[in-house]
C-alpha cells in the first residue's frame, strides 16, 4: 500500500512516560487551551491542532506542513508555554507521525492507553477536547474526520471486545457479582449491616443499577437513620436485623465488631425462610463479620474483601487480554482511515483525467493528419498547439475547483463523480 501523507503528528506526555510532578505542570486548563490553540494556529507550519489535557496525559494533535519541523515546533511550544527548559522535558516526550498518530489516538480513545485499561472516562475527555477545538475552529477536515473515526472505533471496541466488561473496583465487582446471581436488581433488596464508607459506596452502586429497597442496620440507630435517608431506604433496629435477614437478597456487612456477627446458623435459618431463593453476602469488614462457612450453604454466596480484590485482579488481567483483540480492530481501522486520506488526494485523479484527455486528443489529431496529407510540419505543429490549448482551457477550472473541493467534506463526492463521469476507474 502506498503511504498516504496525512501530515498528522502528535506530541505529548502521559502517565507512562512522565511522573505526576511534571505532568501537573504541563496541564492545560480549558481557558488556557482557548488562547493556546489560537497561538498554535498562527504558526505557518501548523494547519490544524487540538489539545487533550487530562490528569494522565497532555497531548497536542496537529496537521502540519512538514512532519519533523511540526513536531519540533510543538515540543518547543509546550516547553515555552509552561516555561520548562527543553532539555528537561525532551526525554519525556513521545511523538508519532502519520499513521502512527492515527493508531495512537484510536488507542487513547478506546482506553487502551489508560492507566486502568478499558476505563470509560477517557472517551468523554477526548470528546470534550474535540468539541472545544471544533468550537474554536482550530480543527479542519482531517482532524475532524480523525476524531469522529476515533469515537466510532472506541464504540466498536467497547461493543465487540470485553475491554470494559469486567469490574475493576471493589464496589463494581460486587455489583457485577450481584448481576450474575440475580436476574434483575430492580426487584431485589439490599441490607446494610454497619454504615462503613465502602458499604455505602457499594450500596449506591447497586441502587444506580436499579435496587429499590434498602435496609440499614447499625449499632447506633441515628447513624442507620441518617444513612437510610441518603439511600432512600429504611433503618432497622440492630437487635432485629438477624430476624429480618431473610428479607435481604444482598447483605453488605461492614461493622467494627471483633468477631462474627452473622453466623452460618443465622444464614441457614434465613435461607430456609426465603424458600432457598439465593442470597449474596458481602463482607467488607476487617475483621470479618460473617462466618466463612456460610459460603458452604446452597444458594448462598459469600464474598469477603479479599475475594472481591481477587475478582478485581483477575478482571484486570482479563482486560489486558481483551486489549489484544482490540488492537486487531484498531489495525484494521487505521488501514481504513489511511484509505480515506489517500482518496482525498486530488492529484492522481487530475493526472489521470489529463492523460485521458491527451489520449483522445492524440487519437483525433492522427486521424485528421491522415485525412489531410498536404499539411506542412508547421501546420501540424499549430494543430497540436491549438488542441492542447483547448484541452487545457477546458480542464483548467475543473482542476482548480477539484483541488479546492478536496479540502472540504464534499471532496470525496466530487472525486468520485469525476472518476465516474470520465470512466477513470476502467
Amino acid at each position, binding site marked *: 500500500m502506498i503511504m498516504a501523507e496525512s501530515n498528522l503528528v502528535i506530541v505529548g506526555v502521559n502517565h507512562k512516560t512522565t511522573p505526576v510532578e511534571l505532568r501537573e505542570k504541563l496541564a492545560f486548563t480549558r481557558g488556557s487551551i482557548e488562547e493556546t490553540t489560537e497561538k498554535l494556529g498562527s504558526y505557518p507550519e501548523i494547519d490544524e491542532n487540538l489539545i487533550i489535557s487530562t490528569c494522565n496525559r497532555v497531548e497536542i494533535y496537529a496537521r502540519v506542513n512538514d512532519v519533523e519541523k511540526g513536531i519540533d515546533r510543538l515540543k518547543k511550544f509546550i516547553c515555552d508555554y509552561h516555561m520548562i527548559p527543553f532539555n528537561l522535558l525532551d526525554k519525556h516526550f513521545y511523538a508519532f507521525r502519520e499513521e502512527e498518530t492515527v493508531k495512537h489516538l484510536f488507542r487513547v480513545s478506546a482506553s487502551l492507553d489508560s492507566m486502568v485499561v478499558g476505563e470509560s472516562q477517557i472517551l468523554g475527555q477526548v470528546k470534550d477536547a474535540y468539541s472545544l477545538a471544533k468550537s474554536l475552529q482550530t480543527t479542519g477536515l482531517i482532524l475532524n474526520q480523525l476524531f469522529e473515526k476515533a469515537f466510532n472505533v472506541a464504540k466498536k471496541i467497547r461493543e465487540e471486545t470485553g475491554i470494559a466488561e469486567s469490574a475493576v473496583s471493589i464496589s463494581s465487582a460486587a455489583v457485577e457479582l450481584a448481576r450474575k446471581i440475580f*436476574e434483575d436488581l430492580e426487584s431485589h433488596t439490599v441490607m446494610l449491616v454497619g454504615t462503613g464508607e465502602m458499604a455505602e459506596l457499594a450500596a449506591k452502586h447497586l441502587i444506580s443499577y436499579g435496587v429499590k429497597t434498602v435496609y440499614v442496620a447499625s449499632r447506633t440507630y441515628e447513624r442507620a437513620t441518617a444513612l437510610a435517608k441518603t439511600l432512600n431506604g429504611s433503618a432497622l433496629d440492630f437487635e432485629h436485623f438477624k430476624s429480618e435477614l431473610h428479607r435481604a437478597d444482598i447483605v453488605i456487612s461492614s461493622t467494627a465488631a471483633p468477631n462474627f456477627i452473622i453466623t452460618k446458623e443465622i444464614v441457614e435459618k434465613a435461607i430456609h425462610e426465603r424458600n*432457598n431463593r439465593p442470597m449474596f453476602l458481602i463482607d467488607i469488614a476487617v475483621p470479618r463479620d460473617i462466618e466463612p462457612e456460610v459460603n458452604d450453604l*446452597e*444458594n448462598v454466596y459469600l464474598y469477603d474483601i479479599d475475594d472481591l480484590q481477587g475478582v478485581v485482579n483477575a478482571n484486570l488481567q482479563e482486560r489486558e487480554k481483551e486489549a489484544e483483540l482490540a488492537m486487531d480492530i484498531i489495525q484494521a481501522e487505521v488501514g481504513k482511515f489511511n484509505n480515506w486520506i489517500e482518496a482525498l488526494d486530488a492529484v492522481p485523479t487530475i493526472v489521470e483525467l489529463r492523460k485521458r484527455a491527451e489520449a483522445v486528443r492524440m487519437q483525433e489529431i492522427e486521424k485528421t493528419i491522415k485525412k489531410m496529407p498536404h499539411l506542412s510540419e508547421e501546420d501540424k505543429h499549430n494543430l497540436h498547439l491549438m488542441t492542447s490549448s483547448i484541452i487545457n482551457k477546458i480542464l483548467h477550472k475543473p482542476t482548480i475547483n477539484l483541488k479546492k473541493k478536496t479540502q472540504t467534506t464534499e471532496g470525496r463526492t466530487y472525486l468520485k463523480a469525476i472518476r465516474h463521469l470520465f470512466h477513470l476507474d476502467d
Partner: protein
Amino acid sequence: MVSRLTGGFAPVFMKIITFNIAMISYLLASLEYFIYLVYRKPGVSKLATGTVLVGLLSHTVIIGLRSQETGHGPYTTSFEVAIFLSWLVVVVYCFTHWRYKVKDLGSFVIPVAFLILLYATFLSKEIVDFPESEFRVLLTLHRTLSVIGFAAFAIAFGLGVMYLIQEKQVKSKKLGIMYFRMPSLESLDNLIYKAVAVGFPLFTLGFLTGAIWNIKMSQTSLFSWELVKLWPLVIGWVLYGLVFFGRYRMGWRGKKVAQGSVIGFVTVIISIILHV
C-alpha cells in the same frame, strides 16, 4: 406388522442429501457456537444461528419425505422417533433463542440435537406400518406428547449445564471466562423451571396415554415391558416432578433444579434408547 423397504432412486438420493446437510449443519453450528462462547468473535453467533436454520430446513424436509413415504407421522420406528426428537429439540431451541435471547444456549443444546441425529444413522431405516387398531390415536398421542416433552427437557438440560458452570464459578470465587459469558443464575433457574413446566405435563400425559395403550392392547398388565427398561423413565419422571412441584413447596431451587434437569435428561435418553 408389515415392513417394506424404501424404493426409487430420486427419493433415496434426496433423503441422503438432506440428512447429511442437517447433520453437518448441526455439527458446524455446534462448533460455531463454541467458538463464539470461547472467543466471542463478532458475527460468529449470527453465522451459527444461520447454520442451525439451514439444518432445520433440511431436517424438516427429511421428516416430510419420511412421512410422505410411510403415510403417517414420524413416530413409529426408533429411527423416526430419533429424527423427530432431534427436530423438535432444534425447533424448541429456536423458539427459546428468539423469545428469551439466552446467549450461548446453542453451545449446549445444538450438540444434543446433533448427537441424537448421529444416533439415528445407526438405527434401521426400515419402514414399519403403524399398528392398525381402534386405539391408534392413543399411541399417536403417547409418542407425540412424550417427544415434545423430551425436547423441552433438552432445553432444560442445556440451561442446567450452564447453571452448574456458572454456579461453580461464583461459589468457588474463581471467575473464569465463562463467568462473563453466562447469564445470571436466577434467570437460568427461572428458565429451567419454565422448560420443565412445559415438559413435565406433556411427559406425564405421554406416560399415561402410553400406559393406557398398553393396557388396551395387551389386556394384561399396566406395563408390557420389563421393569429394567422402566426404571430410568420412572427416575426421570420423579426428578422432573420434584423440579416441577418442589419449587414452592420444598424450596427446590438453583443448584438442585439444575442438577435435576441434567440427570433427568440423561435418564430420559437412556429410557428412549431402551424403550423405543
